[in-house]
């Protein structure tokens, strides 16, 4: 059996199988759809709570802003615009909070437009109030808070939109500063700070949300793949029953249309060739069904492992490992290749061949597992990896071509005794 992870594009009878994506799941199949749905869910998973946190930060900063405003309330020539600005800002935040609480975690275009319009109003009112004071950086309060206010939409809108809004705010601030404030060593630090505060919350927020989503995607991928650990010795993978069901249904429809006379006999050559390929595919799925092990399915189904791990397991020995050993092996491979963010690190996992005789006492046989890697330095390996590897069996690690190489003696029950 060949266990390179690439799915064969063509079967033994020369019939092209359905196009598959990287995970080996046909794009149009239900499994493929489920994968996409899971990934889409992954994108928003948990970000709602993160968005709430961002709103809390905006609220805390708002309270501080109001305190700042009140502390030099006496210096404003006209209090009405700045009071209105703060009122409008508070109203906007509360409005968005209520909308999210009642309508769910969504911000449709019209609401986002209204939100931005309100924030623009806040900035305009604040600028009107501080214009005659000739020190925007020092006296700007509500308009600086708007930079934090944008955080409310952080997880609900696309990053680019938030960023553009923040940059527009900074631009408005710069224009106001240039038009009103004399720039000298006394005033400059405050102006710099005001402009930075317009964009910094959004940039930091977007950075964090991106990292968070990446964590969620990675973890989701890992957890989905981990379900293979409990599979039987030979498994059909998530796609097999989908494929078989699809073929059965296609055959049923064809036979039905022949039976009812909708398709006339003798068949047109095109329909005949459909019948031929259906028969061939069906035959293959019935005969060649279960030759792959859980590890093969884990690697082909995973976004992360699929692109960096190659498996050689001619004897399907991975199927003999017990759940603890499987978990260890999968975790180890995962830790090795997912830990590197830059640079291509790859792992090649080879199981077998079994050469030693079964242990006369325990009746266990030893499956040699060799992991060779590229781009993984011995001293950069996560400590948890060694724990994971030791779950598989006794191991010896070395360095080959300046990358890690691990040889594991994995003791498994002899299938002949079972």
């Amino acid at each position, binding site marked *: 059996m060949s266990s390179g992870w690439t799915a064969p594009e063509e079967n033994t009878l020369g019939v092209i199988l359905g196009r598959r994506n990287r995970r080996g799941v046909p794009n149009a199949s239900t*499994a493929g759809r489920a994968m996409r749905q899971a990934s889409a869910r992954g994108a928003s998973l948990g970000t709602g*709570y993160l968005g709430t946190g961002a709103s809390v930060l905006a609220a805390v900063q708002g309270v501080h802003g109001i305190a700042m405003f009140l502390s030099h309330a006496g210096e404003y020539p006209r209090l009405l615009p700045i009071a209105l600005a703060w009122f409008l800002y508070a109203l906007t935040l509360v409005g968005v909070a209520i909308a999210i609480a009642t309508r769910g975690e969504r911000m449709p275009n019209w609401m986002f437009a209204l939100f931005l319009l309100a924030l623009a109003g806040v900035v305009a009112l604040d600028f009107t109030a501080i214009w005659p004071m000739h020190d925007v950086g020092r006296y700007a309060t509500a308009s600086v808070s708007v930079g934090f206010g944008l955080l409310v939409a952080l997880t609900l809108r696309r990053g680019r939109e938030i960023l553009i809004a923040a940059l527009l705010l900074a631009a408005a601030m710069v224009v106001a500063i240039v038009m009103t404030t004399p720039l000298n*060593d*006394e005033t*400059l630090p405050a102006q710099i700070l005001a402009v930075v505060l317009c964009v910094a919350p959004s940039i930091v927020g977007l*950075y964090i949300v991106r990292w968070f989503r990446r964590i969620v995607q990675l973890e989701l991928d890992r957890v989905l793949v981990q379900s293979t650990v409990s599979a039987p010795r030979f498994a059909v993978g998530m796609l097999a*029953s989908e494929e078989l069901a699809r073929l059965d249904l296609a055959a049923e429809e064809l036979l039905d249309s022949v039976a009812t006379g909708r398709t006339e006999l003798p068949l047109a050559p095109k329909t005949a060739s459909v019948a*031929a390929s259906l028969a061939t595919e*069906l035959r293959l799925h019935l005969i060649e069904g279960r030759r792959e092990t859980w590890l093969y399915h884990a690697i082909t189904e995973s976004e992360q492992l699929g692109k960096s791990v190659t498996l050689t397991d001619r004897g399907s020995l991975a199927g003999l490992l017990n759940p603890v050993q499987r978990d260890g092996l999968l975790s180890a491979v995962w830790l090795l290749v997912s830990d590197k963010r830059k640079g291509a690190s790859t792992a090649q996992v080879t199981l077998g061949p079994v050469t030693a005789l079964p242990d006369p006492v325990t009746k266990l046989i030893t499956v040699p597992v060799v992991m060779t890697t590229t781009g993984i330095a011995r001293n950069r390996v996560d400590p948890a990896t060694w724990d994971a590897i030791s779950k598989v069996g006794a191991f010896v690690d070395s360095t080959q071509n300046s990358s890690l190489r691990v040889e594991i003696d994995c003791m498994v029950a002899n299938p002949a005794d079972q």
Partner: protein
Amino acid sequence: MTITSVELIAKERDRLLQRSARVIGLGSSAVALLCFSIPGVLEGTTLLSVLPLFVVLIFSQARVGASMSLIWIILGLTSGLAILIVVGLPFGTTASSALATAMVPLAAGSLASFAILLTSNVRRMIMLVFGFLTSVVVTEVTIGAPTVATMEGASVALGWVLAAVLGYWLSASVPRAARRIYSIGRAHRAERQASETEAQRRQGARLLHDTVLATLTLLAHSGVGVAPSALQQQANDDARLLRQLRLGATPVPQSSGGYNLEQPVEESALGTTLESVKQRFGRMGLEVSWHGTGQVLLPSDVLDAFLLALAECLENVRRHSGVTDAHVTITDDETTVRAMVTDAGVGFDLKDIDEARLGFKDSVVGRLKEVGGNARLFSSPGAGTTVVLEVPK
């Protein structure tokens, strides 16, 4: 969930906190340095003397991005506070408003960024409170304003509060998301098992697929050589079986009545099943004559393989031999059941015909070998063909 999962998610959480602290810290340090470098804000000598401290601060912030160790936090906080003290010297004088403002990004951003990493346990929380108080007090003292609290001091307090809330919220977000991911994972595991069971059910319905395959093969040859009404009848039967399979039933073919997919017994009699094969080939225009015993009991998986191989051979006869009748002789001894399929057709030279092309290797030999059986093929041009199929009892 395994221990590794918990470890991994904790690692990812820490990494998120570290990265956040680093990006905020380095950004704030850059702004602080920029503000201090504005000519007139600081004396030239003071600026030069704080530069090494900034190097230490920035280095610790870079290290914090990759390590949870408290050492870097302590080093960073100390160097940052030292900068505040140096720029505020001598004490007792009131700092210019420019200098006071320039201290804000340092104390409220650069130093506060460490607060993100100080919410996870009691020891760190104590350090958080200590760092917060020291930063605010040092800021107030170095500014040296006559009032008790300054705007700058309030901003520093705000920075620390925001950073602490951010750190706390992020630490809580990751395990929350992880719990939901694990519930998706559990659903996925159930789905995988269901998928496995479903595949087994469908693959287990071998005899059903056998008849479907035979009919599809006829259709692949456009149904030539078979009476349309017979083929329609056969298609109707097979479509009904597939529909029943799809709806979750274990279908019972009625036209032949021979094989019974929901038969609970381990062993099935060969005779009735053979009759159904005969009927089916009868409809297709191949007269099959049976000889020998019909009362052999076989384990059902062996029976499946045996019948499929037999049907495959008869299909080859029907398509290639050029004759309309075939003979099947069933014999058995203590260990083996043997079927000999013979026809008096055109035959062929074994060397000329690739066995695989007849579907012989996959569907006949492969299936029989799976149950410990074997198949042999004898033929020569003009002398007909004989296939011997053997399965263990």
